[in-house]
């Protein structure tokens, strides 16, 4: 008896002695948990900041001011003012002449060529558009702003380090001296890069834009929604409202859960073998891309739709049935409309996932180099995430900036879609 009491006393002493250590370990454990969250969020912040700090520069583009002599002898020697003649003229020559006049001491062929590299090759088309819009320019000398080439743009933005030896950078010492001269004369200006949002892909970074990819994504998502939303909602209605509880509906349920976890690239293989191989649908088209995305988002939509159907109280259905409505009428006139906002929310979240999907689109050939804006769901197209993938592969410095900017646009769309889903849910959420 005394022995036990002694032991107990000894234990409690031991416990009291260890208490400080145990409390320390408690604090540690809690701290580590918090640190894990902070680290994960810190990484998120680091990623977004590093992409943002590269990407925001692509929304600006450097322009060069030149005195262009719209020489009638070059543009329209016969004086016909025929648009066909005007659009065939040698505008490149006008740009070169303006540059030569501005830097008369540049003599050698090589230097002249590198001087011509100041202005982007799109400059001639900018001049052509001006002349076509206003033929009275011909014969006058005007001050115009032309798009600077990628290398000059990068140098202006400080993305090319200028303190390394000449042969380790893309821009020569001479070009830097011209850049400085132009800059000191106020002939360089940074403006909003509207071309980034209004043109398709290009081999030249300063001319590349995301519009073609955006339109391709838009078409794909349209097809995806048109297919996945009705099918998803109707199968949810069947599974939740009508399906008998038996083996078959069990199998469907397990199947949907498994489908949600199938790697996205496998859906791409399905599209390649079935939609392109067996049904012969047009390769690279948003139609096929949209259908593949639809099959992928189907599980998400079904699960969300079932949850919102489940949230509608059975009394609603019972009341309709009691008033003589048929099963179908009760479900489609009363239950489904009440569940619709929840279903739409689920669909938007599914679309947001589909928006970022890249791998399945690679499989069905939506990786083409697309300059023209696609006009229908049957034309070859690419998608915004695929465009990001393609640009990320390019070695030119200018494309790194464009890639990051395209990512910012993509993330912007994702944020907007998720916000819409949240607002929709808040606004139409019904408490029964």
């Amino acid at each position: 008896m005394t022995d036990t009491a002694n032991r107990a006393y000894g234990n409690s002493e031991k416990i009291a002695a260890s208490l400080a250590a145990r409390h320390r370990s408690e604090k540690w454990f809690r701290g580590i948990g918090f640190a894990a969250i902070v680290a994960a969020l810190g990484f998120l912040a680091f990623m977004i900041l590093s992409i943002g700090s590269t990407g925001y520069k692509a929304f600006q583009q450097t322009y060069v001011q030149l005195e262009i002599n719209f020489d009638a002898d070059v543009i329209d020697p016969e004086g016909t003012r025929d648009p066909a003649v005007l659009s065939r003229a040698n505008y490149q020559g006008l740009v070169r002449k303006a540059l030569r006049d501005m830097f008369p001491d540049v003599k050698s062929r090589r230097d002249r060529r590198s001087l011509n590299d100041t202005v982007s090759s799109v400059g001639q088309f900018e001049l052509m558009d001006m002349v076509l819009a206003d033929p009275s320019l011909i014969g006058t000398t005007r001050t115009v702003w032309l798009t600077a080439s990628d290398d000059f743009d990068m140098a202006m933005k400080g993305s090319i380090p200028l303190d390394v030896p000449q042969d380790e950078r893309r821009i020569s010492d001479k070009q830097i001296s011209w850049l400085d001269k132009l800059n000191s004369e106020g002939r360089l200006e940074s403006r909003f890069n509207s071309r980034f949002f209004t043109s398709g892909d290009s081999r030249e970074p300063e001319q590349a834009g995301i519009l073609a990819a955006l339109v391709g994504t838009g078409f794909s998502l349209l097809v995806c929604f048109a297919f996945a939303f009705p099918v998803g909602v109707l199968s949810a209605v069947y599974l939740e409202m009508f399906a008998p509880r038996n083996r078959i509906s069990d199998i469907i349920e397990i199947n949907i859960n498994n489908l949600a976890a199938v790697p996205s690239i496998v859906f791409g293989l399905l599209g390649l073998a079935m939609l392109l191989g067996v049904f012969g649908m047009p390769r690279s088209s948003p139609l096929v891309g949209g259908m593949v995305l639809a099959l992928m988002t189907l599980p998400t939509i079904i699960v969300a739709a079932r949850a919102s159907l489940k949230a509608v109280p059975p009394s609603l259905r019972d009341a309709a049935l009691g008033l003589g409505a048929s099963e179908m009428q009760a479900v489609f006139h009363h239950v489904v409309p009440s569940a619709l906002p929840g279903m739409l929310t689920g669909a938007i979240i599914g679309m947001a996932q589909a928006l970022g999907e890249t791998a399945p689109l690679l499989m069905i050939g939506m990786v083409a180099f697309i300059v023209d804006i696609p006009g229908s769901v049957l034309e070859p197209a690419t998608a915004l995430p695929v465009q990001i993938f393609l640009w990320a592969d390019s070695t030119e410095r200018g494309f790194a900036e464009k890639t990051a900017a395209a990512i910012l646009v993509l993330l912007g769309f994702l944020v907007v879609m998720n916000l819409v889903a949240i607002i929709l849910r808040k606004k139409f959420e019904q408490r029964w």
Partner: protein
Amino acid sequence: MNTLARASFIGTSRARRVQKNIERAAMAVLILCATVAILTTIGIVFSLLFESLRFFSQVPITDFLFGLNWSPQTAMRSDQVGASGSFGAVPLLAGTFLISAIAMTVAVPFGLLSAIYLSEYASRRARDILKPLLEILAGIPTVVYGFFAALVVAPMIRDAGSGVGLDISSESALAAGAVMGIMIIPFISSLSDDALAAVPDSLRQAGYGLGATQAETIRQVILPAALPGISGGILLAMSRAVGETMIVVMAAGLAANLTANPLAAVTTVTAQIVALLTGDQEFDSAKTLSAFALGLLLFLITLVFNVAALRIVRKYRQQYD
């Protein structure tokens, strides 16, 4: 019964018949929609199986499953030397699991500790803010992670390595795996969170009642009780890592090395499928068909993970309900 009433009665019975037919058709449409999901699975299995069988008629299945050498280049001309290409999938599987393992070493501790903090320690308000923030990580498209891994993380790891005299490939498994791990954190944390929340409060109270601190209760009572659910979540995350494509395509490269060194360049099943099927391809060539065999392999591996995970999670749920 007057004639008018009879006429209206006949009218409604006809209307009812029409209504019934419409409803029968509507039911058929509903059932059809519900089978789309099943048809998709069947379509996946058949298209993968069919193309794979054609591949295995050209390349023996044992060569594919046990071959140690992957170089799918086929000949331009039929008389070219060394033209047959070799299709041993072992290096690809090894690379896939190496990268997945790196991803899991990052994701499991971070995800699990976050889940523990969120479900056991955080106040309701902190939880409502932190949880959606963490979930943003899962909402960011994988192509963004790929870009980040290739352009920021890989050079960073390479420079850090050369700083201490290590020669690290700029397409190292480490960069791809680490970034993938961060992407997977929210999967682990939200599934573990569910598992922890499902542990009945009585267990927690019993722990405190015996004089254990909160950390001790979590480590010795709650975690063991939630272990099946957590391991189910880890399996699901693993399946996700194995099937992840864009990060490895952009950051891991295409060198089929059979190595366990995380600093070397490896390639994965998914990266090879993309490499085989983008760009010019002739149908029927062993090179193109091998992509489907890889796809089948990938599908089966992830299926095993998913089924096992769902089983574990389901079985565990029944325990406490």
